[in-house]
């Protein structure tokens, strides 16, 4: 009972809200389906100290119920007047945590209740004092709700406790019409009639809470109905179950902390922070003007928004805000590295994450030092290995008696990768997973990787260091595989309208060594643009402006059997056992700037589909070309502008199913020679024949010896 004393003190602080809430609560208790017109609900400002003890809570509830019952019923009318703008919440007994946004509404409530509050206050205080008095008199600890009602009934102020006959709970009786509606105004507190007792019992039952949860059915129904009445959904009966579930869920998942962030949203907020950094400009405010002048000049970052607009006409591309973020991310990239030209290559989708790819070209002479270091490391590694092999070979030869046969298999010679800025490595590629995240540079591609990439088909996971598990084993991890696919896609699908690029005037002829053709082009300043209709009609109006990759894996052919100086030193011994073909045919690919009409068909399908972007307005349409060989590669051209983009999974289209490479045939271990051939065991006849011969020989020698001994014996006798 020690909790009660604080209440009278707290009562004056919040009389208006509590009182009206009590009134409404009491109204609730009489009939839960009362069709009242605006049912104002206010939450109650619970004194924080009293929240944490449930017994205190239930006591408070008992208080409120008692008070509400005692209050003159005329206040109901005033209740109705209170506007329906209060925050919809059931009050009695709910812990304050469950009451979001209490404060602004409270003020409105209090304002509305200005006049009535004074009268009510007086009554309240009177009652409060009365309670104290009574509680000290009665010493029943109000633990269970039922007990509360006992206390309540026995607390009937002007009467002695009457534990009258308890009517059995009869829903029909309780909610009959006479009980609903507005009871008459009665200044005096009426006696608890048997009907009312039954109602109170029913209410007590409904207010029961179980061990498992604090929510009683009564409160839950109150919540549910409040919600329905406030939200006024259409056809509430059909959504009753969902609302039921939602209300229950909300009770157990209250919005707790206003101070701490929601832990679930943490990664989202972090990402937003990173993207926000994209939007801030480099310098501070004071330097704003200077920077503006610098930036207005040439910047290597292309006009992504314009490209995105044209591709949107074609129905391709990412959304506009995503494109803008990519633009900012490219700007960031340009600031970090010495970049000469830059282009948004496209997006490759992955299983866990996707890649945004930027194609850049560094300024002259600004090759990253890292690249060279990597190359050196690789070179040293191979040298060490070769030297090691040498020593082992020599060691083996010393043991002439027992030598391990050397393997006769020579690995096929490694085809050297192309230099930077040439062939497949003409551009450098940077990837990132989302705009705002740092860009990672992809290594140059080696011909072996391209050759292997043609044989496998794997999804990208989104992590650059993920291994690529496949057969034939891919030499590298996902970063290498990604780079190889980018190289293949670029070589196959980067196209431009005929005439946009032209060959630069060179002194040398077209016939260069090996027919490799020209590998450089420049923009044609006199390009006038081809009308859209013509662009769509014929494939000859488009040309490839990237070099085709030969089956060797390079763009320019290299004879793998040409020995370099190093190899000649080490390979003297190996030359003799060289069994590989001496002559390799030179591979030739279509030269640069070949029109699309020369592209091979895929099983009677044209490799490109050409469309106009909008058939309804051909005057302003854009020509769109879609690749059927690499689904996801698009190009548009309009007037003097054109652009390529790739958005897809990064795989080639093949009408047949993918067949993994079969394992290689088993190698021959060693040649057969009589030295290692197992001889067949001699048969029985052969053994006996040999034995017989041996015995004869033995017998013959024995006879000779006997003869000799006899002779010697005879000689000595003489």
């Amino acid at each position, binding site marked *: 009972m020690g909790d009660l004393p604080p209440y009278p003190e707290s009562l004056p602080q919040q009389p208006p809200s509590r009182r009206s809430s009590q009134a409404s609560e009491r109204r609730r208790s009489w009939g839960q389906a009362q069709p009242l017109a605006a049912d104002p609900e206010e939450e109650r400002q619970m004194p924080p100290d009293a929240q944490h003890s449930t017994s205190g809570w239930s006591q408070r509830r008992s208080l409120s119920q008692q008070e509400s019952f005692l209050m003159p019923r005329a206040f109901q009318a005033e209740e109705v007047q209170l506007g329906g703008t209060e925050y919809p919440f059931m009050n009695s007994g709910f812990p304050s945590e469950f009451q979001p946004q209490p404060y602004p509404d409270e003020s409105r409530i209090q304002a509305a209740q200005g006049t009535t509050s004074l009268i009510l206050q007086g009554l309240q205080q009177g009652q409060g004092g009365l309670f104290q008095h009574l509680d000290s008199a009665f010493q029943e600890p109000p633990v269970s709700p039922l007990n509360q009602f006992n206390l309540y009934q026995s607390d009937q102020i002007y009467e002695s406790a009457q534990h009258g006959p308890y009517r059995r709970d009869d829903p029909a009786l309780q909610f009959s019409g006479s009980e609903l509606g507005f009871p008459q105004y009665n200044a005096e507190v009426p006696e608890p009639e048997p009907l009312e007792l039954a109602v109170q019992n029913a209410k007590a039952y409904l207010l029961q809470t179980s061990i498992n949860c604090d929510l009683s059915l009564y409160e839950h129904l109150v919540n549910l109905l409040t919600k329905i009445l406030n939200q006024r959904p259409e056809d509430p009966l059909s*959504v009753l179950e969902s609302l039921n579930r939602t209300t229950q869920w909300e009770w157990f998942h209250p919005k707790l902390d206003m101070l701490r962030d929601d832990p679930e949203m943490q990664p989202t907020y972090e990402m937003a922070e990173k993207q926000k950094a994209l939007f801030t400009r480099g310098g501070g405010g004071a330097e704003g003007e200077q920077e503006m002048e610098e930036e207005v000049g040439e910047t290597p970052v292309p006009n992504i928004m314009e490209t995105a607009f044209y591709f949107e006409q074609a129905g391709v591309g990412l*959304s506009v805000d995503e494109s803008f973020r990519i633009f900012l991310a490219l700007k960031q990239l340009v600031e970090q590295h010495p970049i000469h030209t830059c282009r948004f290559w496209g997006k490759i989708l992955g299983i866990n994450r996707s890649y945004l790819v930027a194609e850049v070209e560094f300024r002259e002479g600004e090759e990253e030092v890292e690249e060279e270091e990597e190359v050196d490391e690789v070179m040293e590694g191979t040298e060490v290995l070769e030297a090691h092999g040498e020593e082992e070979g020599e060691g083996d030869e010393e043991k002439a008696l027992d030598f391990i046969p050397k393997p006769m298999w020579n690995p096929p010679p490694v085809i050297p990768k192309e230099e930077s800025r040439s062939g497949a490595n003409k551009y450098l590629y940077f990837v990132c997973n*989302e705009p705002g995240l740092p860009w990672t540079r992809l290594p140059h591609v080696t011909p072996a990787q391209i050759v292997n990439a043609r044989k496998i088909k794997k999804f990208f996971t989104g992590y650059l260091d993920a291994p690529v598990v496949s057969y034939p084993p891919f030499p590298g991890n996902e970063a290498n595989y990604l780079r190889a696919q980018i190289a293949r896609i670029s070589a196959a699908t980067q196209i431009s309208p005929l005439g946009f690029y032209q060959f630069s005037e060179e002194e040398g002829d077209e016939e260069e060594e090996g027919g490799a053709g020209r590998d450089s082009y420049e923009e044609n300043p006199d390009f006038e643009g081809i009308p859209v209709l013509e662009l769509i009609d014929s494939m000859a109006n488009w040309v490839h402006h990237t070099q085709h990759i030969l089956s060797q894996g390079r763009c320019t052919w290299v004879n793998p059997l040409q020995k370099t100086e190093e190899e000649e030193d080490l390979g003297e011994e190996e030359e003799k056992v060289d069994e590989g073909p001496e002559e390799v045919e030179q591979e030739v690919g279509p030269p640069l700037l070949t029109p699309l009409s020369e592209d091979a068909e895929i099983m009677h399908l044209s490799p490109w589909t050409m469309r106009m972007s909008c058939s309804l307005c051909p005057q302003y349409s854009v020509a769109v070309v879609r690749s059927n060989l690499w689904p996801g590669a698009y190009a548009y051209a309009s007037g003097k502008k054109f652009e390529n983009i790739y958005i897809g999974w990064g795989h080639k289209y093949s009408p047949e199913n993918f067949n993994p490479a079969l394992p290689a045939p088993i190698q021959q271990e060693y040649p057969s020679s009589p030295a290692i051939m197992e001889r067949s065991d001699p048969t029985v006849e052969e053994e006996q024949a040999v034995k017989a011969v041996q015995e004869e020989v033995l017998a013959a020698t024995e006879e000779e010896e006997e003869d000799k001994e006899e002779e010697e014996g005879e000689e000595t006798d003489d």
Partner: protein
Amino acid sequence: MDAESLLLSLELASGSGQGLSPDRRASLLTSLLLVKRDYRYDRVLFWGRILGLVADYYIAQGLSEDQLAPRKTLYSLNCTEWSLLPPATEEMVAQSSVVKGRFMGDPSYEYEHIELQKVNEGEKVFEEEVVIQIKEETRLVYVIDQIDKAVAIIPRGALFKTPFGPTHVNRTFEGLSLSEAKKLSSYFHFREPVELKNKTLLEKADLDPSLDFMDSLEHDVPKGSWSIQMERGNALVVLRSLLWPGLTFYHAPRTRNYGYIYVGTGEKNMDLPFML
């Protein structure tokens, strides 16, 4: 995706790179409204776009009050005039399953499929080559049906079932939470359940019969045929099917926005086991 929230949906689904051009979007908005009125559908979904060599098919589906009832499919070549497609029958399925390759884009185009049939002539039995003509429209019906059965998905809680039978849209669906959105079990196939009865009794006890009445994606074969990603800085969860590449499902967690769209060539990715 719902035709009512077409623009927002297209924006959210644009992460896969394929969308619609502005003129198509505009014509869709008007024509789908008219379709809804003419056919008296409760909801009209823009299903997606099948890329053909000559032209593309734009597909829409109409739903009646019961969300799980068989949907009516319509196609159009220009987003303005829509034609109703017949529902898929078994015969259609059997016939069209042999056709491979890209769609042409012409609904009256006929694929030729040569089949060896045994012909009885008196006492002799010999095989004859019979050329079967399959119309592209039939193939279209078949492909749409396959895709729907295999990869059309909705988040858990978006539909609920009443004891009277029909399935309704859950108007109190507030969206999945972030942690739920990353799990495959929070998404269901938008079709009549097939594997539900195979669950053990223990599992069934945990299910909520009004919400969990469809198959979830957890037990899809092959495992790993769905790619779940967060896009737009963790504010959008995107599921892409690897079995039918081109199917994109998006959902903004904690909001009511969700939907799926298929933009692709209409071919199943049979190489999936090699690619995982």
